[in-house]
């Protein structure tokens, strides 16, 4: 990798994304470090602000708009609590997968990724069960709409996360993109997954406990 790699090469399919990225910036990673995670973190700040907007809207609705006759903010707690535990555990399993990958045990890393992905899928299944057992639907009242918008938007994030985990797990196979020394994809997916879990904890707090 030379720092004089021509800029316009970055459109070339011959280059690995890592190399083409550095070439496009015309800079060596050794010189600048890898700032792709920084870029992702900035994006997650933006994504977090979308959630913040939704949370602010929900809390204001709750504070200002009276509930309609016969409806309640009370929700069944058991299933979402189990889901919360599942998601928190999955953060730890993902962390373990990253550790194994950096230590060179790609096989173990893949196993922990599979566990994480399975936990994510369990969460989504639990969410589905909850949706079908709720006594209200999307347009019933303001609380129902907000509930589905918040959990749905978060569920979309979890779905994307599970897909990312599946891709990353495939890439840890022999000859795949991810190795002990080059594992940006895994780290990116891990950062994203922790973010999605963190958002859920806040969401669980204000939607179910408050």
């Amino acid at each position: 990798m030379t720092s004089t790699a021509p800029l316009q090469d970055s459109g070339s399919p011959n280059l690995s994304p890592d190399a083409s990225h550095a070439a496009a910036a015309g800079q060596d990673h050794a010189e600048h470090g890898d700032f792709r995670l920084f870029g992702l973190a900035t994006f997650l700040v933006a994504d977090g602000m979308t959630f913040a907007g939704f949370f602010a809207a929900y809390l204001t609705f709750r504070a200002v708009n009276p509930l309609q006759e016969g409806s309640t903010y009370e929700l069944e707690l058991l299933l979402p609590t189990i889901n919360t535990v599942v998601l928190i555990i999955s953060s730890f399993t993902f962390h373990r997968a990253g550790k194994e990958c950096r230590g060179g045990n790609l096989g173990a890393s893949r196993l922990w990724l599979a566990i994480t992905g399975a936990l994510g899928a369990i969460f989504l299944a639990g969410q589905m069960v909850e949706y079908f057992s709720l006594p209200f639907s999307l347009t019933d009242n303001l609380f129902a709409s907000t509930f589905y918008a918040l959990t749905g938007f978060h569920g979309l994030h979890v779905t994307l996360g599970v897909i990312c985990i599946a891709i990353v797990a495939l890439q840890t196979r022999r000859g795949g993109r991810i190795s002990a020394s080059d594992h940006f994809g895994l780290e990116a997916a891990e950062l994203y997954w922790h973010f999605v879990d963190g958002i859920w904890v806040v969401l669980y707090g204000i939607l179910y406990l408050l």
Partner: protein
Amino acid sequence: MTLANPSDFNGSLQPQGWLRYFSFSLDHKVIGLQYLVCGFLFYLVGGALAGAIRTELATPLSDFMPRDTYNEVLTLHGTVMIFLWIVPVVNGAFGNYLIPFYVGARDMAFPRLNAVAFWLIPPAGILLISSYFIAGAAAQSGWTAYPPLSLTTPAAGQVVWILSVLLLGGSSIFGGINFIATILKLRRPGLKLMQLPMYCWAMLGTSILVVLSTPVLAGTLILLSFDIIAHTGFFNPSLGGNVVVYQHLFWFYSHPAVYIMVLPAFGLVSEILPVHARKPLFGYTTMVYSIMAIVFLGLIVWAHHMFTSGTPPWMRLFFTIATSFIAVPTGIKFFNWLATLWGGKIALNSAMLFSCAFIVNFVFGGITGVALAQVPFDIHVHDTYFVVGHFHYIVYGGTVFVIFSSLYHWYPKFTGRLLNEDLGRLHFLLTFIGFNLCFAPQHWLGLNGMPRRVAEYDPTFTTLNQVSSVGALLMAISTIPLLINVVVTALNGKPAGDNPWNALTPEWLTSSPPPVENWIGEAPLVTEPYGYGQHHGQPQEVKA
């Protein structure tokens, strides 16, 4: 890794010559000019819509177009001008072209993301404008899309409007992430943050605002689209929803959006004034802190747009005080610019004329802004033409004047040729007179009670409206010398040389137009971008 011969790729994959401006190019300079030209085309569209508005308002009766059409025209005008002209050009065009030079890099941090961000804009723009023809009716609820208005006007156009703004918001966020990463992470080794040209700080502040506030607008518009498509009731009072929440969330983006439009202009002016006054930028450190203060305050003043929306007294008090505070950092910047000009060897060329006019216009718009921040005054003029006059002094008198100034200043860098100064001064004169003639009378109209967004008005307002329409006509005419200038000089202009202004900022320390990777050899380390008059008029020592 092995690299194939670069010329193979240049020849086969990346088009050369004018074709590359229509390609998915990853070169920040190509993307910058794509933003500029694309934005200018939308400016012509938005200008034509403005012309339709001023034609309608030349007479008190609604006789030029049906009232529904008038609502569509004013909605499209606002949306096109903000999201397709000012934001993309003052951020995307000049930011992409200049920031990599200023940080001593060969491109932006994420070139592919950069190209994606640009290529979201043309489809979004075409989508927005085509809604008038395809969906039967374009959105009619203004650029604010307040419910319940946006829920009761024809749905198809409103949904297309939301989709378009979501695409443009995404483009803006991608751009913001790229600028933050480029400025913070891609600086040439040895270049410190406090040595960066001021435009970098302006873009850093702007990008922070983009990343923090644009997603909130996106989320809000998604909820609004649910209200329209799925008949939820988030913002629909008849279904138990809350319209004021929409206003809060909308202005949480759209007040910072004012700074997203104007902070980059502040930065560009800070680059242009020292060059043409041959003096260092006055008060660099205070400029930096002022920008960051504006970023912080800009995020906590949004409800001053909502003083008539049943806002409780404590909220009115807080937002009045916070808003008035913004005048302090803004005032610091203005005195710094005046001090930069003071005693300088001022060249009154087109770039300088537009920049000086920016100072005049923006001070006026700023003063009316402070007036509007005061609750009793705001309640009197809320939703009147006073507000229309105020914000056009900010976005047109402020930002658009700076865009023109920047065009005259950096055109030699883009093309290697100088724009014609006579045509440039004519363009300036027509724009300056037309602009003030168009928007100054609107303050009187507003104070006397003419509401905004109406196709008909009381006949007592006729004279001032006609003055305003004549001003609009002058502004339309002012585009002609600009277009002639750009076309003629592009074909047959005076060669500019590499550095026609003897400027010290890094983009001038390479050829005009610059080579593909910005510099042949290593990027120069420029630690004193404003060292005018300190090195006997010679460019400072450049360490390779």
